[in-house]
């Protein structure tokens, strides 16, 4: 079974190499890219079932034993993230294939899109299964460098401007991460996460807090935690729709994933938990207020993305098994729902020619399918029962209430308020873009834009134009179904999250997993 662990990284990497080889021919490129992600999804599901029911998998690369060699670790959290990421990446790839066919990529193929996308997948997977901090850094760099290419794809002025902000901010966080790795190595003489966890208690508390804060700032920039979230709403909305969807769903969550590892395994102490709870509160409220003030659907969604990062940080900041479990379930829910909403925004952009809610209207009449595909995940994100967003928030609030002090109740209040504000922002989109008639739109630019858009399609490739939006709609619909599935099968998924959270309650289980022979902690290996 351990043979499957490196395949998680190798399959997308080899897929990227193959797509580069056939770079001039879009059709085999697409087939290889989709094939690689399907294999990835199958591997992920097999890993999740094995890890959940048998034992976590630890692979020592090249046969070098744990503290000396590189270890790859797949526990429940990592396996769950691999599966969800593979689903999301696959759906977004199918969406972009559909968009590419519609936009006539056959004539002007962007031959680097698919290879870069697969390398992004590789980086994401490396980050999930890395067993030492430096490998985590390398995983982050792989995914960031490919995200630099994807966010500036096409090189138009607005994308370059947004890309520059994104690149410089990401570089800064990477350097900070590298510097904290250097400091940790200087203090502890190791970069293997399990060994750091073993040795961390030997350090004085103030040194521990310094290293802890450095790592949290580095990951906080990536996860877009307030006040380090300023870059996200400026850079994400300008990228191509599928790229934004993949980034919004996945990249910030990898920062949260790293924060979970830091808080549960490396620095399990409660020193910074109150500070993290305050940051979670500010992230939620400021993000939601930003969403209310915006007039562009993609920017509204970017701000809701920031605000919902606050919920996950809240779960992590509790420092209990229940809190971690709730945060893990919320991450899974949010990856799926946020990606779906951005894909729906991509469909809106195609239908109406714009994503500014002041300029579009009447979409409920002209595109009822898109309306449904936007409405369901919007309710889900807002936390309307019975959807998974409601279940995730309920779990979080229950775990928070167990703490029972004033700060905890303030956070529950803020969480409920933010969920209302999210709903308000999304209902505003619904009312303006979908429900009001297109005659009510000032200037009525949308119809003009629509006729301009439709004109060349009706004359040239009629068959291509007819089939392709169907592929885009289908992949979005698929994601909506996954979101509903997450609601229907919330029991089993929450079960996996709970068991993952129990294993992450303190570093004992993680150390046991990587060093099975050392029996410092009493807990048996499962």
């Amino acid at each position: 079974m351990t043979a499957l662990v490196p395949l998680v990284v190798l399959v997308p990497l080899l897929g990227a190499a193959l797509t580069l080889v056939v770079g001039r021919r879009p059709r085999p490129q697409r087939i290889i890219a989709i094939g690689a992600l399907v294999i990835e999804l199958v591997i992920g599901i097999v890993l999740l079932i094995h890890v959940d029911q048998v034992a976590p998998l630890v692979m020592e690369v090249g046969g070098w034993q744990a503290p000396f060699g590189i270890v790859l670790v797949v526990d429940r959290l990592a396996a769950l993230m691999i599966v969800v990421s593979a689903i999301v990446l696959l759906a977004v790839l199918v969406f972009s294939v559909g968009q590419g066919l519609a936009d006539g990529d056959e004539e002007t193929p962007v031959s680097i899109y698919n290879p870069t996308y697969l390398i992004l997948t590789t980086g994401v997977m490396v980050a999930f299964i890395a067993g030492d901090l430096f490998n985590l850094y390398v995983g982050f760099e792989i995914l960031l460098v490919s995200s630099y290419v994807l966010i500036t794809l096409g090189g138009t002025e607005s994308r370059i401007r947004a890309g520059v902000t994104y690149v410089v901010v990401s570089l800064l966080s990477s350097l900070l991460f590298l510097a904290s790795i250097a400091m940790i190595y200087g203090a502890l003489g190791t970069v293997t996460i399990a060994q750091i966890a073993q040795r961390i208690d030997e350090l004085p508390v103030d040194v521990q807090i310094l290293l802890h804060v450095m790592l949290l700032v580095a990951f906080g920039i990536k996860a877009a935690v307030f006040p380090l979230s300023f870059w996200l709403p400026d850079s994400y909305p300008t990228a191509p729709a599928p790229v934004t969807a993949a980034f919004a769903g996945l990249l910030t969550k990898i920062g949260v994933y790293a924060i979970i590892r830091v808080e549960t395994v490396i620095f399990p102490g409660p020193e910074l938990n109150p500070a993290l709870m305050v940051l979670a509160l500010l992230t939620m409220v400021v993000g939601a207020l930003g969403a209310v003030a915006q007039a562009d659907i993609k920017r509204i969604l970017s701000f809701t993305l920031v605000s919902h990062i606050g919920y996950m940080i809240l779960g992590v900041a509790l420092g209990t098994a229940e809190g971690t479990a709730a945060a893990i379930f919320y991450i899974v829910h949010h990856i799926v729902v946020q990606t779906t909403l951005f894909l729906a925004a991509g469909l809106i952009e195609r239908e109406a020619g714009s994503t500014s809610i002041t300029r579009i209207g009447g979409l409920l009449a002209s595109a009822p399918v898109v309306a449904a595909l936007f409405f369901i995940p919007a309710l889900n994100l807002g936390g309307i029962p019975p959807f998974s967003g409601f279940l995730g928030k309920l779990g979080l609030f229950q775990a928070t209430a167990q703490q029972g002090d004033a700060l905890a109740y303030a956070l529950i209040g803020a969480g409920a308020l933010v969920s209302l504000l999210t709903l308000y922002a999304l209902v505003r989109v619904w009312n303006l873009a979908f429900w009001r008639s297109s005659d009510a739109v000032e200037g009525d630019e949308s119809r003009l834009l629509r006729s301009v858009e439709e004109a060349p399609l009706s004359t040239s490739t009629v068959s291509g134009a007819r089939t392709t939006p169907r592929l885009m709609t289908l992949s979005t619909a698929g994601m909506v179904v996954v979101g509903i599935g997450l609601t229907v099968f919330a029991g089993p998924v929450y079960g996996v999250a709970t068991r993952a959270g129990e294993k992450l309650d303190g570093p004992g289980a993680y150390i046991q997993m990587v060093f099975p022979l050392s029996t410092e902690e009493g807990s048996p290996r499962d």
Partner: protein
Amino acid sequence: MTVSLVLVVIMSAMYACAVYLLLERSLTRVLLGFLLAGNATNLLILIMVGEAGIAPIYDESVDPSEYTDPLPQALILTAIVITFAVSAFLLALIYRSWRLANADDFSDDADDLALREGTVLIEAEETLPEASTTDFPLDREDSR
């Protein structure tokens, strides 16, 4: 752990200059700042080796404690490769930005400006950069 004071002083100076350059609006200077900060970080990893020893090539007659620690060197090598690739990309980005906008400086986000002024109209404003904030020539006619 004993560290070389010279290396620490050099690292601090590089970090200080890097922060100064990163706060500039001109992208070329930001790139230089990033390069300095990257190398300062590499130096920080090198400092973490502690006292320098002999080259870590296996020799039976040498006591293991006399070798210098090889792991940070491996980390630096990886970091250098990554920094190199990223700065090449950043340079390409800056050149593209200059070709498109005739400016190599950070511009404010159009939506943020609109929000600050209380309007929802989104219009990208094009202005000539101040001569002092850019390192590229400002001949606007030739560049298009």
